[in-house]
């Protein structure tokens, strides 16, 4: 498991966000497929308001970071998080799950008080 914060070394405790090796591998493959340059672009993690539980995770690629983003570097993969989403996401782990039932990114969030059955919706 890789844990990196903005200005702390890789071994720092999980104050920022964490991305597992499995998730990183999937991100690299997908970025290559989508032609996102690892130097300029990255993976955007965020929280959208609205939806059944009020808040839901959002994950997508962005060709470049926005001005006020926090940028996390995991080897060659950059992750962008806007400041308000970071309030909800700090301490979370992004994993990739592959089972017979489902495959996809999974968010483990210590800040969520209630999670929805769909797995992407939660209450703050």
């Amino acid at each position, binding site marked *: 498991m890789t844990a990196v914060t903005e200005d702390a070394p890789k071994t720092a405790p999980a104050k920022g966000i964490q991305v597992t090796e499995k998730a990183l591998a999937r991100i690299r493959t997908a970025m290559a497929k989508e032609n996102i340059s690892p130097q300029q672009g990255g993976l955007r993690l965020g929280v*959208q*308001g*609205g*939806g*059944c539980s*009020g*808040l839901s995770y959002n994950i997508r690629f962005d060709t470049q970071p926005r001005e006020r983003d926090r940028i996390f570097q995991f080897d060659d993969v950059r992750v962008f998080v*806007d400041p308000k989403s970071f309030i909800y996401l700090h301490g979370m782990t992004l994993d990739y799950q592959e089972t017979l039932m489902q495959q996809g990114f999974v968010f483990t969030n210590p800040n969520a008080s209630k999670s929805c059955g769909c797995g992407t919706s939660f209450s703050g």
Partner: protein
Amino acid sequence: MSPTTVQERAVPVADFGDVRAEFAGLTSACGIYDLRGRARLKLTGEDRIRWMNGVVTNNIRDLAPGHGVYAFVLNPQGQIQGDLFVYNCGDFLLVDTESSQSSRLREFFDHYIIMDDVEVADVSSEWAVIGVAGPKSLAVLQAAGISVPALAPRQLARVNVSGAEATLVQGDNPALSSYEIWLAPGPFASLWESLVHAGAIPAGTSAVELLRIASGVPRYGQDIRERDLPQETEQARALHFQKGCYIGQEIVERIRSRGNVHRKFTGFLLQGEMPVAGAKLQAEGKDVGEITSVASLPSGEGEKAIALGYIRREVGTPGKGLHVGKGQATVAALPFAEFFQH
């Protein structure tokens, strides 16, 4: 100042000297009223439509430019946090709500605007709004030189009022014809005067409140409280079931899939001692409902006392007799038809 002159201030007056005559103006002719006290929020940003669709109970995703809808805002537990109109004005969404709800709704919005590109600005002072209601509304607007196109409820049209640009909105009062005219604060007084000149009767907030109760329109904070379930309010106009996920939807859907709620919002005709809001309705000695709004009004058959409130469905059939305190109440369908000309 003549009694029909609107004051140069944003707080609408309670009355112009005769509440009953003002109410009669609204229900049998054409009344106009000052809506400058309402709050208006402007939402801009690329994500505004998708975001708003995920936050309110009605369909914003498919709301065409130039149209508006009534909606509730619910918390994740399905409790009603407020009500509002949302208009798609093309480049922005406009939220119209009672000023008493404005700061709470803004806080609610701020809480749920996270990664989305949505900006909220209070533009209440940039708009002055005149309400127009009554069977002769159309004739009065035309007499004042406003050309009125055919509109659907809560549809907007650009109009010209005495040289100034304005927006005409078709109202959605279920009992009578109604409109709103939105314009800049500057020409407000002159439009008011020209409507009066065209035959409109100025009405204060007291008469407008009587019209609201006679029309059976619930008011948030009084008839719609947090503890009332969305379906209990009987406001089907606020709910949409194919629009996708929104906050509180799970509860609304669960209620729908189970069939029904136990209580419903309805009207009551009163006799004997007037109850106050909060009074319990009883049938065979058991509590079966409560009063939320009361009014005493002149009708074609003399003075009538009416109320709005909630009743258990099994005793909620129009005509059903109930007790309230030392008086009697009879369940009545909304709106109260006896106050309106047909």
